[in-house]
């Protein structure tokens, strides 16, 4: 069934293309290789990486053998797949072309240009280069003055881990914060079936893994329940053990909660933010030194490139709701008060290649410019 879609107009399309060519030319002059992924892509990588959430925004179709296909919703995943196919270790790519996003009442075809850098080990310098090039190219395209916002998923994840939250809690908190939910709401697990309700399973409180597993298996067989599906009694037992230990909540004490709240409130000038982060780490005893050194080093590279770092604004809670973003994130919005959506955005996604099937994590950072969001006067 067709999704509602706004009228496709060609007004401004050529002007956008011309602005895109200027930005794209800038990337090529900087030594980035033109890459052109197919418009028609397999749907699976997008759903695997971003979750079923994005399905509603995809233009879906099917191949002759029933395989699920979609029009590319972005360039990053297709370019990363091409890079992995090429077998190259280090590479720099630039692209220009349409991406497709289904949005009720709005045009589904959007022009993007951008760049991706794979394999560089000097990550702070690479981060600074990508943001610098993206801002310069946006300027060449006619974006006008921009406000830059930065964040750091490595610092964010580091703080959550240092507070002793397990991996799935780290992701839950990041997801909640990225969606703009208040912290109490993110941490509230009131809806969970209380451990005590599991009755006899309270006996697990002092059990070890094997004991717990045996008990779960016994219970299932007494009740005559057959196990189907991919989740084993052993996994069920482990979750009970974990709940017994933490009673199902995040396990955060008042002090840690306070530290987390304090962390999320840190924002502003990158250097001032770095000082606040260091002070917090010291007082709350958080071992996040490496992430902070990297943060400071990057700021240095950004300043050395001549970027107006003093006008950048850091937000501790500025993270993306995507697991594969592992470090620096940034976006730039027009200073025009009417502007809402960023003209460019990007970040470090070292986790993507591995999640797409590469043997190990591959350093990667990139940025995209939304040409449709350039103001009309920039295009004329």
């Amino acid at each position: 069934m067709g999704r509602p879609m706004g009228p496709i107009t060609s007004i401004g399309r050529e002007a956008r293309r011309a602005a895109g060519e200027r930005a794209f030319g800038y990337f090529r002059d900087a030594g980035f290789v033109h890459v052109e992924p197919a418009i028609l892509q397999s749907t699976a990588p997008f759903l695997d990486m971003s979750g079923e959430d994005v399905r509603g925004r995809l233009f879906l179709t099917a191949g002759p053998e029933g395989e699920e296909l979609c029009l590319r919703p972005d360039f990053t995943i297709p370019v990363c797949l091409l890079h992995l196919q090429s077998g190259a270790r280090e590479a720099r790519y630039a692209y220009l072309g349409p991406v497709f996003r289904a949005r009720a009442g709005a045009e589904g075809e959007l022009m993007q240009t951008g760049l991706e850098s794979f394999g560089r080990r000097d990550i702070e310098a690479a981060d600074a280069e990508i943001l610098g090039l993206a801002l310069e190219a946006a300027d060449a395209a006619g974006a006008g003055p921009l406000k830059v916002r930065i964040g750091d998923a490595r610092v964010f994840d580091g703080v959550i881990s240092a507070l002793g939250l397990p991996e799935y809690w780290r992701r839950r908190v990041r997801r909640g914060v990225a969606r703009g939910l208040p912290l109490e709401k993110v941490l509230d697990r009131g809806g969970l079936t209380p451990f005590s309700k599991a009755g006899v399973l309270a006996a697990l409180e002092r059990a070890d893994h094997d004991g717990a597993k045996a008990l779960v298996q016994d219970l299932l067989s007494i009740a005559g329940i057959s196990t189907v599906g991919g989740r084993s009694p052993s996994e069920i037992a482990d979750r009970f053990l974990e709940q017994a230990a933490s009673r199902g909540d995040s396990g955060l004490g008042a002090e840690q909660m306070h530290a987390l709240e304090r962390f999320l409130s840190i924002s502003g000038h990158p250097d001032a933010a770095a000082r606040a982060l260091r002070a917090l780490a010291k007082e709350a005893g958080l071992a996040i030194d490496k992430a902070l050194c990297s943060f400071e080093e990057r700021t240095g590279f950004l300043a050395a490139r001549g970027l107006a770092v003093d006008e950048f604004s850091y937000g501790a809670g500025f993270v993306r709701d995507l697991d594969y973003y592992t470090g620096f994130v940034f976006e730039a919005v027009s200073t025009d008060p009417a502007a809402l959506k960023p003209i460019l955005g990007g970040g470090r996604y070292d986790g993507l290649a591995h999640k797409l099937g590469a043997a190990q994590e591959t350093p990667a950072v990139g940025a995209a410019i939304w040409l449709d969001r350039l103001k009309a006067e920039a295009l004329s």
Partner: protein
Amino acid sequence: MTLVIAVPSKGRLQENTYEYFARAGLEIVQGRGVRDYRGSVAGLEGVEVAFLSASEIVGQLAAGAAHIGVTGEDLVREHVADVDAKLIMLTPLGFGRANVVVAAPQSWIDVRNMADLEDVCAHYRARRGARMRVATKYVNLTRRFFDEHAVTDYRIVESLGATEGAPAAGSAELIVDITTTGATLTANALKIIEDGVILRSEANLVAAKRADWSDGARDAARAILSRLAASEKARRSREVRAIWPEGNAQAVAETATKFGATAEFSGSGAQAFLCPRPLAAELANYLLAQGARRVVVQSVEQVFETDNPLYNALASKMFATD
């Protein structure tokens, strides 16, 4: 312009739909051969019946290719992005009842509600690096419902038949499927998540906003909807007739109010009421207590009223100036 009514072409849904129309004195006549997918309503000009699968009916209505149709609410909610802009749900029909539910293996004794499921999905992904798989044909309903419950660590595996077997077959960890009694789920060692009922569905009479509502189509719709409303009103009512010499105007009016009934046909010591079906016996006993000598309760065929709720539902949303 002909009025096109889309009805299910097979199964229980078809039988029930024919019956629903037949009760209103509308006999659906299939074309000559069994392979003829167009029919008519006996004795009604300007009406064409299209025999389609329940999901095709949704598509035809959404596109405005049919004016009125009978189909399940589950299919409407699944396949139509903006229901209010395209369709008018005229009335639920009381048949084709089924729930769209989230079901997980019974062996997940630690999972009772959606919050538990969210937690387990997050654990599963953290442990295995892969997302929990949900087999379903209700892709959109699932996506919306899981999003409301903040469940994000899952993947949908589209399933076009025997969805309940997916966990046992190893192609998914849990399912979203339609169920009437839950027996099929139980037979497959699955249980319904407590707050995991996504939709309580039944067959609905649905009108298409985007259809060509010419005067002819409108008149035909009015004729059909008034008959359907009349038989529906009749089905929900009983006529209660009493020999009641003492029943003066005041007593009659009081009685009618007391039982939500309407008073009708009185004269020479007899009085009739039209009352809601469940209250008929109670009304009869009440009348006896009030001095009636004999009370007859009988079912009625059709109740035509100036106020036609089905046509009004259509007209108020479609023809503002009607």
